[in-house]
């Protein structure tokens, strides 16, 4: 089977790059700020592949570059360099060579994103149903009744009370806002979904329900996902393979059970030892 996504050498540097940026940052230098020019190396030479229907975990602490990876793949940020090939049915897209319109099309039709902060994923000035309708409209669903029906289906699927679909998500709890984001992301049945710290900051019982929902969706729709988190429990539950990042670098990758039971890198050993 061909991977749905192939990422090679993905690099993102904030600031002007100097020749020392990559040589003088990273885990062995204990920083991601270039001492020569002060630029921040958010991600450097990140490479991985993702199979259709697979859940890949990206684990690391704040500032490790894990969110940068999915934000570039979702076109929220432009990479400094690197390649990402997205295979969709028979077509192959070089993500970073596409023009703005093509990138928007993929983002609206074939990718889904759920952010840690619902503010980024939802428009609080329109209703929950309206947020989903917006995405459906971009997918050429124009009939009011059809849109409303599909939106209420999606909200039902993600356990949001349909009776509240005309309220602004501003009035919802954090867990419900995440459910609306997930419903919105799933509206187009995308083959690829990015989840960026989706359960961080939620109550444990709410976290559990969101994680259950994500697993059910993966079972039902065979959606490939990249799950970014600092939470080993989330990784253990969701991901079949895991990348561990520190200071913008992938320091280790492997089967999730192997990463958790036989971590190779000193930093991963420390992470695993401090949480289990």
């Amino acid at each position, binding site marked *: 089977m061909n991977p749905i996504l192939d990422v090679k050498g993905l690099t993102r540097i904030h600031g002007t790059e100097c020749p020392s940026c990559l040589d003088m940052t990273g885990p062995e230098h204990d920083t991601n700020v270039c001492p020569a020019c002060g630029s921040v190396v958010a991600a450097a030479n990140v490479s991985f592949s993702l199979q259709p229907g697979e859940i890949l975990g990206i684990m690391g602490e704040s500032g490790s570059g894990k969110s940068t990876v999915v934000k570039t793949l979702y076109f929220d940020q432009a990479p400094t360099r690197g390649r990402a090939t997205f295979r969709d049915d028979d077509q192959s897209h070089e993500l970073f060579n596409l023009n703005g319109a093509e990138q928007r099309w993929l983002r609206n039709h074939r990718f889904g994103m759920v952010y840690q902060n619902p503010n980024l994923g939802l428009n609080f000035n329109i209703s929950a149903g309206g947020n989903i309708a917006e995405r459906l409209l971009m997918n050429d669903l124009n009939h009011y009744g059809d849109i409303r029906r599909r939106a209420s289906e999606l909200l039902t699927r993600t356990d949001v009370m349909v009776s509240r679909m005309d309220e602004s998500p501003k009035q919802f709890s954090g867990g419900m806002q995440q459910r609306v984001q997930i419903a919105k992301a799933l509206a187009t049945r995308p083959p690829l979904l990015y989840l960026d710290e989706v359960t961080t900051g939620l109550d444990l019982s709410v976290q559990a329900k969101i994680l259950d929902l994500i697993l059910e969706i993966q079972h039902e729709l065979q959606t490939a996902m990249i799950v970014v988190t600092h939470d080993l429990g989330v990784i253990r539950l969701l991901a079949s393979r895991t990348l561990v990042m520190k200071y913008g670098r992938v320091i280790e990758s492997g089967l999730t059970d192997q990463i958790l039971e036989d971590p*190779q890198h000193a930093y991963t*050993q420390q992470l695993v030892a401090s949480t289990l």
Partner: protein
Amino acid sequence: MTAISDTPILEVQGLAKQFSLHAQNEIVPSCSDVNMLAFPGQLAALTGPTGAGKSSVLKCIYRTYLPSQGSIHFRQADGEVVDLARISEQDMLQLRRSELGFVTQFLHCVPRRPADEVVAEPLILRGIALADAVAQARELLRRLNVPERLWRLPPATFSGGEKQRVNLARGLIARPRLLLLDEPTASLDKATTGQVIDLLREFKQAGVAMVAIFHDPELVTALADAEYRLAPPRSLTQSTPALEAMQS
């Protein structure tokens, strides 16, 4: 029909595993110089004192541990022989879905899901419809004496023995070609242990190859076709084949 064959499905040669603990700056040997064979329709028992690395051998075969040295040749259903110490993560995941099974002492499963669905999961992953898979799961739970009133409950609150039965059922349901068993009967009563012995004998009849660790010598006598006694491990100086394969 027995499916005894002269061709091994698994050949472990010179396997060793050691942990490099960076914080303690220490190398901890876990198993070394392990050589063993497993054949279709037969059970190979790993024996030896505590700390000889019996569980480590099973975890290396399953890639939960990265082997430090040696090879683990596995004959796939399609006849191709691959080295489990060196194959890609994707290939390993594929083999875990379709050909390898691992039953440990402890049940690690998705919380909040009812026992029958936990057991059915390996079938669902192979594309069998939920209703069919759950029906088969219940059949197996019945055979392993798990009371019917528990089937729709999540196993988190079950007793140790009940959890272990759920765990066994999940490991056995998909009839893997190679089944790894790490003390699968450690907390079971006599009657259920008897049921497990009958089931494993059926598996042998059906041609399943097994590598097992039993705490009870009687089970070794009852089920094993070969016994491999492990000696306490020694330290090594070489590095990990899977990492080398990935780097090359």
